[in-house]
């Protein structure tokens, strides 16, 4: 029964700054907002698309998607109302698209609307989205927690440049979700209460919800599992033994889920030598140190991945040799990298003519295998760096470690030499993933023309500067192929090409580890969408 279970409290160690998902791309923000605003369809815990505000997921089969793959028509479930009681109509949906696609709005989810040429209201409950060309995967707009529907009435005057002025709306969006915002304190705490107009009269079970942000993962885990102050803690990136210790507190349980997130080492295919100067550095190929495939292969062979999982992630990590480890049908079946092979790596380097010098470091033709190895500052990554440095030293490769403040490393400031895009190093380590379940654009990151360079203001996602015309060709084919099996086949091939080249050395398939209190029922961890996607179904367990 609605509101019968009192208060539920959630802690995110990153605090939400805004509840308008279009003005912030941050996970913390979109997930918090997912309690209030909802999309037409979203992914469930298995990565399947399910209808949410729509009555069904449009497909070619059910006629929702046109045969030529250029349009998709959404049918809204009838009888929906906003939390203020007004009716939810197709106009709101169209408005949402206009809002995000406004050229001055700086919408964070603009890429969801890529290729959209028109959104039109067919009738009160029907919206048609038209794309510029065939779009085999048309589920960008209005799908997933990053692309929810906002109310036209509320945001009408907040278009484009005016968007930031609507503080009230950005902090307290009217939504269709199970909760409404009572008070929003940016970067601190959100107080919510049950949406009295929620479509299911029995839900949510909780009358109020507290969403606390800030602190660190350790504290969040402790608050749920050891002191029991909170019911749900998000993303506990902690050493396995710390998690285990917390679990002994007996108040909560960690839960893990796996999306396509992979911790990897990127190998720089361009030469990062500072002597080259700003226009050439990390732009011209090849990188003399990493150009030899044997070197890249050996680097990967020297790594003991099971140990990395055990030390760094425990139950939140899995072994993988792929760039795309999930969903299952896209995952290639590489297993060659799973066991460490120092001897093999040494032999391979010996054979390739890299001879060890007096200091134990290999060199060939005056090129020493001494790498700069950078990553963002983070305890697990630093442990990984240390371990990998040690393994590499065993095969005669020296690594000079650097760690950079995350906000600098991941910030796109073209003026900073320390961004991961500039890649002023031989190798760097970070994790990346993609939204939803379709890897097309993710794999598109490795196209030749996506390499960052001064010409592109260092924008571009081909971080390792991988370039293979055959790959580009194959990817093009993917963009034109419909049908999940055929697409998966191509995607696996693309994945293998990258892995084979050694430009990306996958380390760990990382999961999301969260924890919930033992008294909180109904939690289903979802890594494909908002983690707290089904908060409406949560309830308080009795007697616990």
């Amino acid at each position, binding site marked *: 029964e609605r509101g019968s279970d009192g208060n539920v409290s959630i802690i995110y160690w990153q605090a939400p700054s805004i509840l308008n998902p279009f003005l912030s791309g941050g996970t913390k923000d979109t997930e918090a907002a997912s309690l209030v605003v909802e999309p037409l369809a979203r992914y469930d815990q298995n990565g399947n698309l399910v209808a949410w505000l729509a009555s069904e997921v449009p497909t070619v089969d059910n006629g929702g998607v046109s045969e030529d793959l250029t349009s998709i028509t959404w049918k809204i479930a009838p009888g929906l109302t906003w939390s203020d009681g007004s009716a939810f109509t197709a106009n709101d949906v169209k408005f949402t698209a206009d809002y995000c696609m406004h050229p001055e709005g700086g919408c964070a989810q603009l890429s969801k609307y890529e290729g959209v040429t028109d959104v039109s209201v067919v009738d009160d409950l029907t919206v048609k989205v038209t794309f510029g060309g065939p779009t085999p995967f048309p589920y960008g707009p209005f799908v997933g927690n990053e692309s929810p529907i906002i109310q036209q009435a509320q945001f009408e005057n907040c278009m484009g440049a005016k968007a930031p002025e609507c503080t009230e709306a950005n902090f307290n969006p009217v939504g269709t979700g199970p909760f409404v915002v009572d008070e929003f304190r940016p970067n601190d705490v959100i107080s919510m209460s049950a949406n009295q107009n929620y479509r299911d009269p029995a839900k949510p079970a909780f009358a109020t919800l507290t969403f606390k942000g800030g602190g660190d993962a350790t504290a969040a885990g402790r608050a749920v599992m050891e002191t029991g102050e909170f019911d749900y803690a998000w993303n506990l990136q902690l050493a396995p033994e710390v998690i285990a*210790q917390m679990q002994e507190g007996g108040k909560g349980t960690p839960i893990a889920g796996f999306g396509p997130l992979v911790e990897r080492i990127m190998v720089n295919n361009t030469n990062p030598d500072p002597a080259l100067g700003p226009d050439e550095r990390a732009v011209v190929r090849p990188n003399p140190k990493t150009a030899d495939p044997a070197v890249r292969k050996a680097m990967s062979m020297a790594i003991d991945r099971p140990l990395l999982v055990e030390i760094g992630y425990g139950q939140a990590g899995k072994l993988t040799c792929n760039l795309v480890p999930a969903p299952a049908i896209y995952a290639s079946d590489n297993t060659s990298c799973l066991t460490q092979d120092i001897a093999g790596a040494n032999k391979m380097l010996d054979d390739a003519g890299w001879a060890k010098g007096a200091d134990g470091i290999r060199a060939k033709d005056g090129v020493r295998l001494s790498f700069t190895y950078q990553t963002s500052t983070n305890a697990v990554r630093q442990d990984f760096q240390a371990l990998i440095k040690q393994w590499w030293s065993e095969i005669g490769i020296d690594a000079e470690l650097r760690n950079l403040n995350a906000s600098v490393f991941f910030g796109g400031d073209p003026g900073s030499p320390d961004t991961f895009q500039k890649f002023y190093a031989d190798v760097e380590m970070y994790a990346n993933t993609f939204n939803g379940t379709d890897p097309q654009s993710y794999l598109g990151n490795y196209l030749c023309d996506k390499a960052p360079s001064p010409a592109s203001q260092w924008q571009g996602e081909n971080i390792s500067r991988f370039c293979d015309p055959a790959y580009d060709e194959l990817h093009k084919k993917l963009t034109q192929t419909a049908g999940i099996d055929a697409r998966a086949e191509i995607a696996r091939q693309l994945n293998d090409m990258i892995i084979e080249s050694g430009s990306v050395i996958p380390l760990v398939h990382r999961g999301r580890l969260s924890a919930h209190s033992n008294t909180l029922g109904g939690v289903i961890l979802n890594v494909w969408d908002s983690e707290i996607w089904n908060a409406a179904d949560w309830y308080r367990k009795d007697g616990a």
Partner: protein
Amino acid sequence: MTELSNPVPTAPPRSQWLDVWDQFKTHKGAMIGAILFIMIVLGVYLGPFFWDIDPTRIDIRSRNQGMTFAHPFGTDQLGRDMLARMMAGGQTSVSVGITAMLLALFLGSFIGVLAGFFKKLDGPLMRLTDLFLALPLLPLLLVMMLLFRERLNAMFGLEQGIFILIVVSIGITSWMPTARIVRGDVLALKEREFVLAARSIGTTNTKLITRHILPNVLSPIMVSATLGIATAIITESALSFLGLGFPPDFPTWGRLLFDATDYLQQHPERVFWPGMAISLTVLSVNYLGDGLRDALDPRIRGR
């Protein structure tokens, strides 16, 4: 020849530093502090000759060990020897502490003396002090990293480069209190008659400052110095914590302490060692400073 022509000294040549030492010896706290501090310094610098495990050597099989014979201080989550890491960390922490303190002291005394001594400079220099007090440390550091890291790395190598950067950034953000105190003292000293007397015998401004003003503001400077080492060691740990410090495979006490706080419940000894080392250093330096201040003051020394 010159030896012969020298007159026989009338009193045994007692050097000033011998006097200072004599007084210093009688200060019990100072002696304990000095011995402790020397032991810490010797421990971290000479220790590695006796305990020659590489602090970055990972021995994954023996990770998370408590105190054992092979690893007296235990090992960390990657199986690195804590004793070796403590010694390596100590080298960095102690040298960062001392150099940053010296730099801050130098800047603080320099600006304080100039502001106190030259009336014209007083206003601008004190506003400069306000400016530095108001500057946020973090963005400042980021800017410094951006502007100078590459160049320093090229000139001094990675570790030296970062060392210089950290020392400089701690130094230039912590000289302000010293400057204020010194300025206040100099203002008062300037009115003392011996300064006028020195001027009347033809002492130039530079000599006046070095011979007469500086030795008389030594005692507040000493106090700042002792506090300065402590602040520098702790600031360095905060910097490591924010990812602006030394590379992660480069242990410092602050970093060891920070890394260990997550394991506080599982392995309390891992927190204990670096915490203990920082506290002991700070304490010993404080007592040392107390004694030194007394010893440098001839008035107290006479008693």
